[in-house]
């Protein structure tokens, strides 16, 4: 029965693929013609740039927000909460268009002390071009989500790790940087990789504010030659290729992290091969009993 179902499904898939491949509207020659088109590739470059900058800013800002959220200081905690609440509440597209039109709200951006002197004043319209608006929007919103991922990861590091570091005379900053973050990032990596893939695809929204990314570039082309489906397939294929590369990268990074055994039981325990020359008879006896007695227990752990 299982084989019958499987065969039927494979048959359906083959039939659909064949129909797709020979569909005249798909127009494979046009797809081939535009696949490596200069504008399409330049658009792909911008898509990658927005994604890369945004995820880096999001991780750094997110780590800062997560630390604030977990701090003892109620003001810092409150501000971090407010940030996450604000940026998670606004739909990405709304935020994007809003950022792009920031100059309508604030014609100039002033850097200075509130109610005090102004050091720098920039014309908002000149500062926020579509590309800047896109990067700012995606960075700020992604930081809100990444900070939540990092907060949970930091909390997943056992309290004993922090206590041991503090007991060795490490300052709080050092404890976070050297002991907590390295362990938290291992936990955070799969969800962050997932978010990166999501972010990459979400960047297609920048077409709304006329950033010539991958999506906007193919739109420009099909609005003049009307080959809508082939050009959308070009964009689809490129998104699929980049996502596949990211997924493979994620797989290898996760595998590398897994093989450095940060968690109990991921590697089997090898038996003590040679005892050190300097070991005393007591040490040897203790070692023997220890290793003889515990191997099964450790494998279980």
């Amino acid at each position, binding site marked *: 029965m299982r084989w019958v179902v499987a065969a039927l499904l494979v048959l359906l898939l083959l039939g659909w693929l064949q129909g797709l491949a020979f569909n005249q509207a798909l127009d494979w020659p046009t797809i081939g013609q535009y696949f490596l088109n200069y504008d399409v590739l330049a658009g792909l470059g911008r898509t990658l740039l927005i994604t890369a900058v945004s995820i880096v800013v999001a991780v750094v800002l997110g780590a800062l927000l997560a630390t604030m959220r977990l701090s003892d200081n109620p003001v810092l905690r409150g501000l971090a909460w407010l940030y996450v609440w604000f940026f998670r509440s606004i739909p990405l597209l709304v935020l994007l268009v809003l950022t792009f039109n920031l100059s309508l709200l604030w014609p100039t951006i002033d850097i200075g002390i509130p109610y005090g002197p102004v050091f720098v004043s920039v014309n908002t319209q000149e500062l926020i071009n579509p590309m800047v608006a896109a990067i700012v929007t995606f960075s700020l919103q992604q930081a809100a989500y990444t900070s939540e991922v990092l907060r949970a990861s930091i909390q997943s590091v056992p309290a004993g*790790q922090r206590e041991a570091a503090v007991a*060795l*005379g490490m300052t709080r900053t050092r404890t976070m940087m050297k002991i907590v973050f390295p362990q938290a990032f291992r936990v955070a990596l799969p969800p962050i990789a997932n978010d990166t893939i999501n972010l990459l695809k979400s960047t297609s929204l920048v077409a709304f504010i006329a950033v010539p990314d991958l999506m906007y570039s193919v739109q420009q082309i099909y609005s003049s030659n009307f080959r809508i489906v082939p050009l959308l397939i070009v964009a689809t294929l490129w998104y699929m290729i980049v996502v596949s590369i990211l997924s493979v990268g994620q797989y290898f990074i996760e595998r590398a992290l897994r093989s*450095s055994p940060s968690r109990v039981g991921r*590697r089997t*325990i090898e038996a003590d091969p040679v005892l050190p020359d300097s070991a005393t008879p007591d040490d040897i006896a*203790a070692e023997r009993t220890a290793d003889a*007695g515990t191997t099964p227990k450790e494998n279980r752990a």
Partner: protein
Amino acid sequence: MSPFLQVTDVTKRYDDVTVIDDVSLEVERGETVVLLGPSGAGKSTLLRCMNMLERIDRGRIVLDGEELGWKPRKGVMRELSGRAEARQRQDIGMVFQSFNLFSHLTVLQNVIEAPVGVLKRPKAEAIAEAHDLLRQVGLDHKADAYPAQLSGGQQQRVAIARALAMHPKLMLFDEPTSALDPELVSEVLDVIKGLATTGMTLVIVTHEIGFAREVCDRFVFMEDGRIVETGASDRLTVDGATSPRTRNFLSRVL
């Protein structure tokens, strides 16, 4: 001369529960003191107060003439900054019940992390010393292993080496063998016994009465957050103890 470690009138509360109630205790340099008592007696909490992992609500703890967590300035006692508090903790080694080795670092990296990162010792020197310490606890051949690849007893011995690498004045042991399988207990106790003979000052919370009697100079029996009795190690028997409560406890665990 005032004692090496002086705990004076220390009280610790969690909300309304008083876990340590007006406890005073003195430990001389080079002395080994064992804290005994039923669970919930406040032994571990008292130990954690001794390196400021817990804040005390009243009283003072002075180590080697320096008050922990406070400093007089212009005639007023002021709380130390986080940095100064960390500085004081460098002199106090702590060994935890659950080992708490840094799981993302190898055995060697665990031992040198604080000497290099906190004390700024040259790395080569710290590595050489770490190998010496690991040899002392019989685990130099595991220097490149990760904590997850070691048995509990081995992890605890590494934790002891890690604490010793800071050259502490005082070592605190918080039930160092309670999380171990019975057959692994002796390898850790042997290392602690060895340490007691080197002149290091040790304060140990343990439930191993036989070990306590063997290793300590003095025992302190606690119950309900108070010290019931202190005495020399040879009095650590049902007949030797003075207080009926100590006798009662010992008769149940011996």
